[in-house]
Structure formats: C-alpha cells, structure tokens
C-alpha cells in the first residue's frame, strides 16, 4: 500500500470485475493520438505483411472487403485510464490474413500512415485475439478513430491497437514502437497494469 495522504477519502468503492485496476468507465469514445488524423484514400489503401525474409503479402481495400469478416464485441482499455465496455466492430481476423504467411518470427511491428508504430508478440495477434477493423458500431470507422482501418487487439492497452494501420512487419527479435520507445510498457497488459517500462 502507498503512503496515506491525510484527508483523502476517494469516491465510494465499486468492485467491478470487468474493470482493470486503475481504470474508470466512460460512455463516450475518447480520442488519443500523437498528432492530427491522417486522411487515407481507399483507392490508395494497402495492407502489407512483410516477413523477416522480406517476402510481402499485400491486400487492397477491395481485397480486404472480400475476405470473411467477424463482428467482435469487446471491452477496450486506454492507458490514459478510461475503459469502455461492449464496443462492437467489424473486421478481418488476423488469423485469416496471416494464414498463408510463412514465418519463424515471434514479434510484429505494426506500422501506420503518419509514421506511428507499435510492437507486439505475434502470438497476441492469433487465435481470435486481433482484427483489422473497418467498422465501429455499424458505421465506417471514422478517421479520428483510426479509419479507414485500424488494428484491434482489445486484450492489451489500446495504444497497441494501431490506428490507420498499413502493415505488419514480422521480426525475429522484439523492437520498440513509438510509445514504447518513449517509456511505455513493451507488452501493455491492462490486468497487470503494465503502463510504463518496468511495471
């Protein structure tokens, strides 16, 4: 337990077991990014998976939309302490996109329009845990929230769900993405409150 600050009582405690430690619940959908939203035109949109040997797999917007989609409903947790329950999305499972990719990599760098990057273990993207999402609550994903398409990895803090995603680079060794290089946690499990390096 931390040291007590005299006079501080805090609000009535609620034990909500869907809420990770240190988070509070919001009804709206706040925006968090390091700069303005890049505007990406669908005719130029590509999603590229690059393996550790340099082999590329590429999908256009039309390709993506012809792949089987899923409609996950998930809770999301932002490192700035808000959580939102029951958000619904449509997108393509990474299991589908990575099915024919031959790789020995254990790690992935997600890369976005605008230069944003974030690193993840490959296994966290597989087995029904991650999607390339293009609809939110039944509508096209707005640019502020990462549209036309973003990575969705709801079991990790939401900065891992890279907005405006344009590709995945498969890596044999882990490397640090944008926020991770600035001191945020390399993995980012909200249930273990892995906010900053060393947490």
């Amino acid at each position, binding site marked *: 337990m931390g040291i007590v*600050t005299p006079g501080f009582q*805090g609000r009535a405690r609620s034990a909500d077991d869907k809420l990770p430690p*240190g988070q509070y619940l919001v009804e709206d959908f706040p925006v968090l990014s390091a*700069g303005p939203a890049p505007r990406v035109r669908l005719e130029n949109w590509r999603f590229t998976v690059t393996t550790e040997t340099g082999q590329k797999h590429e999908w256009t917007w039309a390709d993506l939309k012809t792949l089987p989609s899923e409609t996950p409903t998930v809770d999301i947790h932002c490192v700035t*302490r808000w959580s939102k329950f029951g958000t619904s999305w449509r997108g393509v499972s990474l299991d589908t996109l990575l099915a024919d990719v031959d790789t020995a990599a254990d790690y992935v760098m997600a890369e976005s329009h605008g230069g944003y990057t974030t690193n993840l273990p490959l296994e966290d993207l597989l087995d029904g845990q991650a999607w390339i999402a293009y609809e939110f609550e039944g509508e096209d994903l707005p640019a502020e929230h990462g549209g036309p398409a973003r990575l969705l990895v709801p079991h990790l803090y939401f900065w891992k769900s890279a907005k405006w995603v344009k590709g995945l680079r498969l890596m044999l060794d882990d490397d640090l993405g944008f926020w991770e290089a600035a*001191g945020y946690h390399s993995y980012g499990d909200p249930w273990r409150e892995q906010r900053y*390096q060393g*947490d």
Partner: protein
Amino acid sequence: MVQGKLAWRVGRLAEVRDETPTARTLVLDVPGWPGHLAGQHVDVRLTAEDGYSTTRTYSIAAPADGERVEITVQRVPGGEVSPFLTEVFAPGDPVELRGPVGGWFVWRPASRDPVLLVAGGAGIVPLMAMVRARRQAGSRTPFKLLYSVRTPEDVYYAGELRRPEAGLDVTFVYSRKGPADWPGEPHRIGVADVNNAGWPAEFAPQCFVCGPTGFVEAVANILVALGHAPRRVKTERFGPSGS
C-alpha cells in the same frame, strides 16, 4: 528515454498559488526527482486511510528546477481527485508521484524552429512550462501563444503572461465573455484565429496543441488545413470527453 522502472516517490506540498477561483498551482518538493523536459507530465497517486488509492495525470507547469515539481490543477466539479488537490491538500502534506512521463510532447531549448503554442483552458499548463523553459534558457527562439479561455478571470498565470516578453507573442481568445477593451465577439477558436496568431506554414514551426479533446481535434485539423505538416503538430488531450 525513461530508463528502467518508473519509481513512485513521496513529494510534499511546499507552496500553493491560486491561479483562478477554480485552479491552483501546487509546488511540490520531491526528493530524488530526476528532472524533466518542458511538456512532460507526472502521475499523482492518492491513498486513503483504508488503503484505497487512485491515480491521475498532471502536466508539469515549470521547467526542471532541482527537486521541485509544479503542477496546476483545475477543479472538476464532482471529481474524485481535483477538488481534493485544490481545496483540501495542504502545505506539508505528502503525496506519491512518478515520472516524468511522455517524451513526444516536449520542447527542447536547443531547438531553433519557431514555435506555436495553442492552449484551451487548462491545456495552458504544459505550454507554460515551454514558455518558462525558453525564458530560463535565455533562448531567442520566437514563440507565439494562442490561448483560448472562457473569460478573463479564467486566465492562468495572468500576471506573467500579460507582462511583455521579447520574442513571445500572446493572443487571447475568449469563448464566453471578453474584457471591455477586447475587440470582437466571444467565440471558439477558428481558422482565422489560428491563421492570424500563428506562423505561416512555410516557416515550418513546431506546433503544440493542448486542451480538451474536442478543442485539440479542431485546432489540429485547422493547422493541417493551413498547410502545416501533420508531423509538426504535436497534441496532448486532457479530457476523456469532447467537452
């Protein structure tokens, strides 16, 4: 940038300054504080007698100065932490802090690019740290500050910002009610304000925008529309809501 584990440290409130009727600057003494850059923030953790604790993030209001950490807290009505910090927390009382956090929304005194700062309400806090860092370093880098507030009574650091300072242009925009001698009607910041008070995009300034989410989105989009490269527009959002 942040090396190893970010440790919780115990700080003590050394001094308070009321900025407005609802915002208070807290000057904390934090033994072992490693220093910070203008624009970074700190996590503040409060623990009650029964062991319950909760954490909030606050921007640092002044450049590094030994073991001193200055924050300015706006009272959010009904909030769990901000009313406590602005009304109850008293000099000599301890609180836990860790940081500094954030290595992106920072201004370094060695930088020579012209700077545009755009603040909405409490969003002035990290931008004031940049203004003060410039002064502390004797930097001649030209700064422009565009500061949106509801009324003249809501201006933080008013005495300091109204004192003329070479190379720093300050423009206020009032959203609810301006002072008697202010030309123009109260309004939210728009493209004309940013265009008039800012730098031409050809000067390739560094732009820092901070405030409530909706404000930051609006200003960042205006800057991009005015031709500023998105990578030169750095943003920090305080509020979870679009208010």
